[in-house]
């Protein structure tokens, strides 16, 4: 009969209304991402407190979007002087983390990185040979 489909539709929407909302109240309930989530790039610290990176260049070669920049320490070929990632251009494909032979890179489960200035999206993970902690999740 004409109208039965309409009535059924009204019934469905009303039942959903009574079932209650599914909304997550994000800024009030901070969402914890799964460990597999690929978000922002950060670098581990080695035993001496320096960057875990060994400046092997694998990630730079593997990066499809040229968002990484590495400068080697002129004194020590196995030490990075600068390690920069342009998060404003990164596609978060994870090839750098996957390719890193020393497991120096990892993703931080953080997503609150919106800024007013594009320049601040360039993270210096290593600056003048020292691990900066930029890119790590803010404590």
């Amino acid at each position: 009969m004409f109208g039965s489909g309409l009535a059924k539709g009204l019934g469905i929407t009303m039942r959903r209304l009574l079932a209650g909302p599914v909304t997550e109240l994000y800024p009030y309930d901070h969402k914890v991402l799964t460990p597999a989530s690929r978000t922002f790039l950060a670098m581990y610290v080695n035993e001496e407190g320096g960057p875990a990176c060994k400046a092997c260049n694998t990630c730079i070669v593997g990066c499809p979007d040229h968002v990484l920049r590495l400068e080697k320490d002129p004194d020590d070929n196995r030490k990075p002087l600068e390690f920069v990632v342009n998060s404003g251009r990164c596609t978060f494909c994870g090839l750098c983390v996957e390719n890193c032979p020393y497991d120096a890179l990892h993703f931080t489960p953080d997503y609150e990185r919106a800024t007013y200035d594009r320049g601040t999206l360039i993270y210096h993970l290593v600056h003048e040979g020292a691990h900066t902690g930029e890119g790590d999740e803010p404590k």
Partner: protein
Amino acid sequence: MVNFPRSEATGGTETLLLNVGPQHPSTHGVLHFMLEMAGETVVTAKPVIGYLHRGIEKLAENRTWQQVIVLTDRQDYVAQFSNEWAYCRAVERLAGIELPERAEWLRTLMGELNRITSHLIWYAGVTMDIGTLGTPFIYAWETRERIFDFFEAVTGARMMPNWMRIGGVRTDIDPALLADLRTFLERDFPKECDTYEALLTGNEIVVSRMKGVGVYTAEECVHLGITGPFLRASGLARDLRRDAPYGAYAKLDFEVCTDPVGDSLARCRVRLRELRESARMCIQLIDGMPEGDIAVKVPKALKPPAGDCYVRTESPRGELGVFVASDGTTRPYRYRVRSPIFYGLSAMPRLLPGHLLADMLVIFGGIDTSMGEIDR
């Protein structure tokens, strides 16, 4: 610029040039239709595309074979896994790589789940087109979110998985996740499908809008290069998953959904049935998932032998062909995508004239556009 021919259909009165898009709520992206209208009737329709042309085919030539997968994700952002899979299959065929069985099954599972999410986006879009205030849209999104949670847990990203690798897949799927997914697909998903059907094909207003609108025969569709659910809704059971099985499809029991009518309502019915069919396949895949490796060892600097090959797969929108050519180096010589809706759209100037503006959106919604794949 475009000159519309003077039309006889208007009886000599002046026609109206209506630009629908590229920034219009129901063109599903940045598609631009130049419509010549006589009142509310379309006289000529000319699709203008290219607003999302990012040059993926050229960019791929400057990347290694592996890095291209990052682009295939973004090429069709509604059916990421299908596009990754098509590309990987093409390269594997070119390089002569045989996959372990588990990898094939995992890929098939993700491909079918992706078909569900893609059809859900179609459902959301088509219900918006016919003028609901987004309620069915949001119900579809709810289910999609549920599947996206699974995608994220497996691949690490909600939308851009970068999960398939040449020679296999990147990560294995946790059995607990699979069990969860199976429960969802078996218990909740059919109920959701009932809801979708009741709100779309069961609604008299929708039936009055779609029944008998845009009836095309299978011959017309084949001649105009239309594939996928649009063609199957015209009664021709053509599906590469059955005709030229790949992945694990040969071992699955599934039905190719067709509908003899060929109007807009039939296209809706076919896609809604495909949702259930895909869920059924996913359950079979989870149950029959073989043990074993998830990837074969492939050199990092992969160099397929010189030559080219063309591989067609059944994406949610139709036949997705990938043509790759190699010159024996680490980078593709040519990467080309045969987009099903690129050719589907090329049929629109022949399909749309004579219909009302409102009908035009319904018919056009039937090919389920995704501009990323058309423009590449």
